[in-house]
């Protein structure tokens, strides 16, 4: 198959097999910030924004989203211009191995876009599809709260 994808704002024309998942397509295209933890939609390490919606990219066939806008964590913020969520997670010590972190950042990004003042419970619900084995989630939740506060203070 052949199709155009808008990945992090850049148009890519890609040729791919029919059974290729969006995750595989993205990683093949160099987007290794999208991590593969299980390939079965269970861990959330591969989440991306597909036309604004948070999806496990390993559960989406690339052929089903030709023409779509895909955002990975790199579109949210980079080393030189990090997003407040990324900065807050760093500041509270919520990044251990960091393998799940890009997915956590995107899940938190979607949450805070709709809900700038989430409760702990709402944060837990928003992140319940992202497994982390290192942190016990405590500092991740704290980091999302801090990001929300900073974003509101600067709004």
């Amino acid at each position, binding site marked *: 198959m052949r199709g155009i994808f808008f990945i992090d704002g850049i148009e890519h024309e890609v040729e791919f097999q029919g059974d290729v998942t969006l995750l595989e397509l993205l990683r093949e295209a160099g987007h290794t910030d999208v991590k593969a933890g299980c390939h079965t939609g269970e861990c959330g390490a591969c989440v991306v924004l597909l036309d604004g919606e948070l999806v496990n990219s390993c559960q989406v066939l690339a052929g089903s989203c030709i023409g779509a806008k895909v955002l990975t*964590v790199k579109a949210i913020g980079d080393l030189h211009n990090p997003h407040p969520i990324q900065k807050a997670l760093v500041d509270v010590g919520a990044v251990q191995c*960091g*393998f799940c972190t890009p997915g956590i950042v995107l899940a938190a990004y979607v949450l805070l876009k709709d809900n700038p003042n989430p409760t702990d419970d709402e944060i837990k619900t928003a*992140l319940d599809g992202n497994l982390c084995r290192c*942190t016990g989630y405590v500092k991740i939740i704290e980091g999302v709260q801090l990001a929300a506060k900073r974003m509101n203070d600067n709004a």
Partner: protein
Amino acid sequence: MRNFNNIGKNVRKIDSLSLATGAERFVDDFSIDNPLHIKLLYSPHAHAVIKSIDTSKAEATEGVALVLDYRNTPDALHTTAGQGFPEPSPYDTRIFDKKVRFVGDRVALVAAETEEIAEEAIAKIEVEYEILEPIFDPEHALDDDAPKLHGGDAYAPIPVEYDPSRNLAAKVEMSFGNLEKGFTESDMKFDITVRTQYASHCAIEPHGAFGVIDERGRMVIYTATQVPFHARRIVARTLDIPIRDIRVVKPRIGGGFGGKQEVFLEQLVGLVTWRTKRSTKIILTREEVFANARTRHPMRTRMRVGAKADGEITTIDLDCLMNTGAYGSHALTVLSNAGGKVLPLLNKVENVHFLGQSVYTNLPVGGAYRGYGATQSYFAYNQVIDMVARAANVDVLDFFKKWAIKTGETSEVFRVLGEGKEGVAQIIRSCGLEECIDKGAKAIGWSDKRGKHIRNGDKIKGVGVACAMQGSGIPKIDMGAASMKMNEDGSFNLYIGATDIGTGSDTIMAQIAGEVLGISPEKFIVLSSDTDLTPFDVGAYASSTTYISGEAVRKCAIEIAKQIKAVGAEMLDIPIEEAEIENGRVFLANTDKSVSYEEICYHAMYSHNQHQIAAYASHFADESPPPFFAQFAEVDVDIATGRIIPIKFVSAVDCGQPLNPRLAEGQVEGAVVNGIAYALWEEYIFSSKGKMMNPRFWDYKIYNTRDLPEMVTILADSYEETGPFGAKSVGEIAINGPIPAIANAVFDAVGVRLFETPFTPERVYKRLREEGIIE
């Protein structure tokens, strides 16, 4: 609290922003030109001999480069345990063997141009098996008529009891005092048997490795490992390739927890890369991580205790039967720690006997797993202590305060029980357990909740406690080294063997070096775990990194400071012994004589008596100071369903001086959450044929955000004088408490003891019925 510049500060983890922005690279993230992809054929049988194997169709498949099985691979016996040399684990493993010993054991390998082709070729391999009777029950593994897994050639490379003709993978026995005398002197006797289950580490990054041949024909292996130097050695020895021809590089690692202390993929990529002279890659699927990688050893622990009416324990008999599965990876050392990291806690008990036996079964292979045997054993230990205290009418917190080991004390266990040999006598120089108990009790609301059986509908509340210790490295065995060189801007390259697997050790090492040199950690460019570039380190295990590798860094920085002072003193024309350093300058006190590190480095490199300011240092320790904790669980037991609902979990931990409190807390919180899930849910479900049936997160559920209880972490005010800036370990210990603290909380709520993990609603419900709590 002491006054530090960097130590005790929440310095930002140096790789955290690059991780959070997805810029860092894990093994699977490197672009490799045209690699071969490895797929494995696994045994469908728990115990069988390969009668014939036909790989011709696989070999004839277009795009297949190499097919390997026992007939065309080196047959060196080795252990996949990534331990020091000679390893304390038995040499019972071959890269491929004619015999398969568990469902999921390796039969053959295909290396092909794509993963798909490799999978297709795997399906074309025809194997005829002679099926042997399997042994699944560790209780019967030592029986005379039990099927035997390993033949006569397996051996232990160190002088320990090892008898594969009996399925005995390891045996440890230790005693002092007189057990029977202790029982005779006692007024009360306790005898419980508990069982723990198989579990997976569940690092979110699956195991993976790739090999490439460099410009000069050497082989470079990038691998998701906790033990790069052991990996290099084991690859060299099993493949008979000189160590000088192998470079092992550890990129970012997506969690380890012991699972990546295992060298079992590097041989495969090494073999294919070396034979084909092509790049080769393997990334395990999640299913493979569950079913074919390593696990936590299940254990049956029987603990018999005699105590006087006032609670004084007169005798302890601890009998551990550990299931090591098909191979003996860590079979001896995990077993030893079930006694060695547990029994010293109640150091006043005069009569102690410990018997540990590890047995082979035709089930998945055990390995290192955070807590390393102590987790399994503390389940029994802390429940018995709760029983003794209750029987003596003593608050269990007072019991611990009275009888647990204290600063200045020792335990005979330290001396007599090591890992595969005698132990190392040591005196406890720092023990903040009493502070942990007091602060933890306050945080959980002990006096308001203990014994109150607060009921809300079908839910009854209870609180329980567990206390534990661990170690900080393996004394007289573990070694870490560091080297450092200075740059013109007053920065330093810090090269360490220490292996950051997500723990933050790269950051901690920079903090330590910065503390010595009076500068910010940001002045250090840290490079760790590259066997070509960094000095040796045993790797990330045994809770050794902060204590052992950290002290190597401290020593190295002290040597650098001496050299800087020498140059600075020369430049300032002052006596070297009067030169002091602070804020990146060498100065003479009470004068305005001062010179910056930058000026010093320029001077040393370009001006006079030119030389590179550089140093290296190694460290090994004579002691292994234990961290301590008191952990408290508050649970609601739903007696209508048997469900245990953790409400709050408090960990009060003495890890010495926390070098970076937030990173230390993160170690505790991660371990606790893993520990709670292990206590309540995580388990391997096996078919009657020994096949692991739930190799996916849907069916092997680990905790997510919605499962969390309220979490409280307290770090005690403690200082370990033998550690770098007062530090002890913190990586493993906190996983030891959830099982017993929850079990004790359940007893507090409903008066029922639990003897088998995980505490699923089904098991708890059954126990509630057995004890007549419900009908």
